[in-house]
C-alpha cells in the first residue's frame, strides 16, 4: 500500500470506528418522546435523509428526554443516537454549548482537548464519545450528515418545525 493509500485507509477507519457503527446500527432512543415540548423534522435534500427529533424540556430548562427517529446514513443516525444520550438531564444552555463543540469538532476547528475545555468537566466522558464524530472532518461532504440531528434539535428548541442542511 502506498503512503497515501494508507492515510486514506486510516481516514476511513477513523470515520467508521466501532462506536459510530454501533450507534448507526443500534440507535439509542430511536422513538418519539412522550409529551414532547418540541418536535422538528430534519431533512438533507442532497441524499433524502429525514429524521424527526423530539424533546421534553422541563420548567427548569433541563432536557428530561430527547429522542430521534428516522432514516439516514450511519453517520447521521449515529450522531442522532449519541446526541440523545449526551443531552439527557443537561440544561438546554449547556446542550447548546455541546452542539457548538460538536460542530467545531466535525469541521476540524478544535480537537478533543479544546472541546473538553469548553464544557464542564463532568461532560468529559460524553465529549470523548462525541469526538468520534470528528472523523468526518476528512470528508467535507459528510459533515452535514453528522450535524443534521443537532441542527434539527436546535430548530426544534427555537420553535421552528423543520431544519434542512441546505439552510444551515
Amino acid at each position, binding site marked *: 500500500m502506498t503512503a497515501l493509500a494508507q492515510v486514506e485507509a486510516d*481516514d*476511513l477507519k477513523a470515520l467508521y470506528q466501532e462506536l459510530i457503527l454501533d450507534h448507526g446500527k443500534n440507535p439509542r432512543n430511536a422513538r418519539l418522546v412522550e409529551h414532547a415540548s418540541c418536535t422538528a423534522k430534519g431533512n438533507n435534500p442532497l*441524499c433524502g435523509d429525514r429524521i424527526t427529533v423530539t424533546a421534553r424540556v422541563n420548567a427548569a430548562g433541563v432536557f428530561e428526554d430527547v429522542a430521534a427517529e428516522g432514516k439516514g446514513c*450511519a453517520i447521521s443516525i449515529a450522531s442522532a443516537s449519541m446526541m440523545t444520550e449526551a443531552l439527557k438531564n443537561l440544561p438546554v444552555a449547556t446542550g447548546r454549548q455541546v452542539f457548538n463543540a460538536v460542530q467545531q469538532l466535525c469541521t476540524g476547528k478544535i480537537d478533543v482537548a479544546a472541546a473538553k475545555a469548553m464544557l464542564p468537566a463532568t461532560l468529559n466522558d460524553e465529549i470523548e464519545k462525541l469526538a468520534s464524530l470528528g472523523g468526518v472532518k476528512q470528508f467535507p461532504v459528510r459533515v452535514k450528515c453528522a450535524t443534521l440531528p443537532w441542527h434539527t434539535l436546535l430548530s426544534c428548541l427555537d420553535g421552528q418545525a423543520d431544519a434542512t442542511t441546505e439552510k444551515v
Partner: protein
Amino acid sequence: MSALARTLPIRAFDVAEIRMDFPILSRQVHGKPLVFLDSAASAQKPRAVLDAMTQAFECEYANVHRGAYWLSEKATTNYEAAREKVRAFINATSDSEIVFTKGATDAINLVAASYGRMVLKPGDEIVLTALEHHSNIVPWQLIAEQTGAVIKVVPINADGSVSVDRFADVICAKTRIVAVAHVSNVLGTVLPIELIAQLSHKVGAKLLVDGCQGIVHEQVDVQALGCDFYAFSGHKLYGPNAIGVLWARAELLAAMPPYQGGGEMIAIVTFEKSTWAEAPAKFEAGTPPIVPAIGLGAAIDYLNGIDRTAAAAHERDLLHYAMAELPKVPGVKLVGTAQNKASVQSFTMDGAHPHDLATVLDRSGVCVRAGHHCAQPLMDVLGVTATARASFGIYNTRGEVDALIVALHKAREVLQ
C-alpha cells in the same frame, strides 16, 4: 474543417483507444486510478471537445448574430454549424427545429411555460411516469398550478419496466401533454417511445421526451420515435455543460409564444409592441451559450467518428457483466432489472446506507452516485430512501466493474 471531420472514416471501437481520448481518465484520486462510474450524472470530455472550445475562445470568439465584422461572422458560422450537427445527429428535418438552451431542465421548462401555458385549461391532464427526474416533474407542477391542469402518473412495474397498457389506462381524452423519460436515470429502463407516441397522438396529446439519458446510449431519430419534443443536455453526451437542446416540430415552435424576452429573439421592438423573430431565435433570448454549443458540436463529431453500434454493444456488455457480478457480493441487491435497459445500474447493500457506501468506494478511487438521484417519487415507489448507482459510458471497462466489486467487498468490511 468540420466537413473534413465528417468525411473521416469511422474508427473501429477499441476501448483502450477511446480511453486515451479522455485526458481525465489517466489521473488518480486518493492515490488510486480513477474509476469513473457516474457518467449518467455528467460524462467526461474527450480532448476533441476541449480543443474545439479552446480554439473557439482563442481564435474565433466574438458575439454571434450581431457584429458586422469578420470575427463575429466566423463565431456565428461556428455556432450555427453546431446547430446543424445537432440536427443531423437526431435526424430532425430542419435546423430551425433545434433550440439551444442551458440544458435539459431549461428545455423542459421552456415547453411547460410556453406550450403548456398556451394549451392547458382547467381539468386538462398532463401524464408523467413514476420514474421521472425532478426536471420532468416540477416544471409541470408549476404550470399545472397556474392553469388548473392536473397531473396523472403512470405506475411502473416491480422490475422498473413500464407497460404500454398502463399508459393506455391513464391517457384519455383530457390528456394534452405526455412527458416521459427516454431512459430512466435511476433504473436504466428504456421506455417504448414509439408506442407511447401513438397512444398520445390518438387522443390529440403531444409527447415530450426527456432524452437526457436516452441520447447517450442509442442513436436517436426523432422522426422515427414519433415524439413532438425531445430535450437533452450536452454535458451527459461527452460535451460541455451550460448547453442543452430542445428539438420540437416546426409547427409547434411556430405556434408557441416566447419563453423569455430579450435580445436575439425579436423582430421589431417599440415600447407599444414587439414582434418576435422566427424559431429558433424566438426561444434564444440574450447572448446564447456560444462556446458550449460549439463544444457540443465537437462532441457530436467525436461520437460520429466512432462505431456507435459497437460502442452500444460494449456498454451493454458492461451492464450485463455488472448485473451478473454485483449480486455475488453478499447483501447487494439490484434495483432496476427491466428487460430493455441502458447501462445504468442502481443497487443497495443490506446494512449499508448508499452514502456510506459511496464514501468508502471513493477512497478506492471508485466514483458512484448515491442518493435519490433527483427522483424522490420513484424512491417512494421503490420503498427506499436512496440507492447507489453505477453508470457506464463508452470509456468504461470490465476491469472497472471488477474494481467496483473489490471496493464493495471492502466497504462491507468497513461498514459491518
